[in-house]
């Protein structure tokens, strides 16, 4: 059953990916004519025409669509106009950076959130709870690009211990990770704390206490397992968002990830880059979604996977 479920999901994913890519094809062509961007304003019409033919933009939209679909099926996304290299190569260079950045930030946030959220829920209403509450609310509310700028101001401009931007050794990862960590951490602490309080008030916890289970066991075995469900869902969504790149944060720090690549690609009307990155990101996100669904079913047997 689980294999047919997996096949079904994969088929759905392929269909959705096709829909996604087709809409991306049309959206990209609606955002503007790339020829205008690559040639000066006073370029002759002949030069424009030549550029258009070189890019294959002179043919009918339907023909372009068929050609494009065939290229994609053979995983050829064409040359990037801006980088003058195959687009997929550029994307595959940026993707690991983004994935590593997102994974590190999210893993740290998830772990910290579970610990802090559980501690807050156990001490609900107390001083620790209020402290965690204020901290997590602040973390969930801070604009990441502003946090980045203030980090630069403090650690790069004033103390000169961290680089302002760029890419290289581990030291270049500190500020981007810190900026991306804040929001998921705050969000998840709230979710874990809320569902944990609910779980601790549930009757099965009372039963566990009544039969003499110790406090630690009740909290971390009986309650936490049930409280994890919403946290896992939200983490899945956050992971899906992060796969698209830490967009603004990557721009702030000049971090060579997929978010910066996409924003640059859209602003420079680089079709190949935009398509290739959408494709790569979509594949990553579908994998994440399937993983979250499977994880969900394994944590909560009541959720029937049909």
């Amino acid at each position, binding site marked *: 059953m689980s294999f047919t479920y997996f096949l079904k999901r994969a088929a759905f994913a392929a269909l959705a990916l096709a829909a996604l890519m087709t809409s991306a094809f049309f959206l990209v062509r609606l955002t*503007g004519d790339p020829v205008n961007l690559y040639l000066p304003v006073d370029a002759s019409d002949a030069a424009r025409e030549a550029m258009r033919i070189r890019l294959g933009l002179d043919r009918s939209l339907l023909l372009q669509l068929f050609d494009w679909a065939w290229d994609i099926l053979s995983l050829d996304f064409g040359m990037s106009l801006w980088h003058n290299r195959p687009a997929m190569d550029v994307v595959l260079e940026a993707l690991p950076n983004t994935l590593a950045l997102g994974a590190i930030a999210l893993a740290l946030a998830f772990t910290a959130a579970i610990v802090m959220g559980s501690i807050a829920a156990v001490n609900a209403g107390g001083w620790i709870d209020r402290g965690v*509450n204020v901290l997590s609310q602040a973390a969930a509310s801070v604009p990441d690009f502003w946090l980045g700028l203030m980090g630069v101001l403090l650690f790069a401009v004033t103390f000169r211990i961290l680089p302002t931007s760029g890419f290289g050794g581990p030291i270049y990862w500190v500020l981007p990770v810190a900026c991306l960590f804040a929001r998921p951490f705050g969000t998840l602490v709230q979710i874990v704390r809320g569902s944990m*309080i609910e779980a601790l008030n549930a009757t099965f916890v009372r039963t566990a206490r009544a039969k003499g289970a110790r406090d630690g066991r009740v909290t971390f075995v009986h309650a936490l397992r049930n409280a994890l*469900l919403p946290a896992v869902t939200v983490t899945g969504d956050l992971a899906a968002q992060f796969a698209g790149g830490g967009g603004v944060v990557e721009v702030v720090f000049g971090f060579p990830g997929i978010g910066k690549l996409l*924003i640059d690609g*859209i602003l420079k009307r680089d079709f190949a880059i935009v398509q290739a990155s*959408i494709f790569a990101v979509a594949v990553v996100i*579908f994998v994440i979604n399937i993983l979250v669904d499977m994880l969900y079913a394994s944590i909560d047997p009541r959720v029937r996977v049909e």
Partner: protein
Amino acid sequence: MTDTSAEFLPARERRSRRILWLLRALAGDPMAVAATIWLLIVVLAIFTDSLSLLGDNRISLKARNLPPFDFGQSWTLWLGADALGRPLLVRLIQAASTTIGIAVVTVLTSLIGGTLLGVIAGYFGGVVGNVIMRICDIILGFPTLLVALFGLYLFGPSVGNLVIVLAVTRMPAYIRVARAETLEVRERLFVDAARAFGGGPTWILRTHILPSVAPTMLTLASVNLAMVMLFESGLSYLGLGIQPPSVSWGLMVAQGQGYLSSAWWLGFFPGLAVMLTTMSFNLLANWFRIVNDPSQHWRLVSRRR
């Protein structure tokens, strides 16, 4: 209204008692009180601005990059002035109405739409549920930022488009959580019982599923209010949201970025305003959730003792 018959009195009394109880519950939570005060200040500031009582927003070369906390100046200059000598405090207040208005409208749109679609997808499942979830997957397949960029690129960066684009990109998150919660709730005994008693799907959804799902959805909406405000700030920061001469807090951070090492307050205060406001929304929504959840009333009650 003129005819207050006897049977209406108990209801009115109940209502006034409920309001009193709410106020007392609010007083028991200092953070919620602080959040309320901050939001009241912001609302009042927006109100005075809409009546154009602030006046003085002219470019003044004498006040270029005036540092903050110079209390000898007029009160509008207490937070300093920007690169064109406009008082920062007045600019902050003008930006507040844009930023907050966009966030509130967007969240309401995606909360209502997302909860309804998610509950329907979770409860009925089947073809409708699958279609809803697949559309969600497609939207989630686009990075939120990309959808937003596309939308704003296609339709132009206007306030209305910003709201639509942000509401559509945030909705899948609501749908997924509402569906997950519904999947869990519909397996519970009381729903089975309601079904066994012959309750129709609409009735079960309204009286059993929606109230069980609502607390989680409100928590999500509270966090999302922050998220949407941050997203709008981010887009405006990138130069793709609110366009000058309009102001939003994100745009102000971007304008202050160039002066980071010489005039830190230009970027600092707008960002701080975003943080404090979203935090207040969060804290209040949190408090609201506890008040609306009978199983958590003990927290408010025990605090009063």
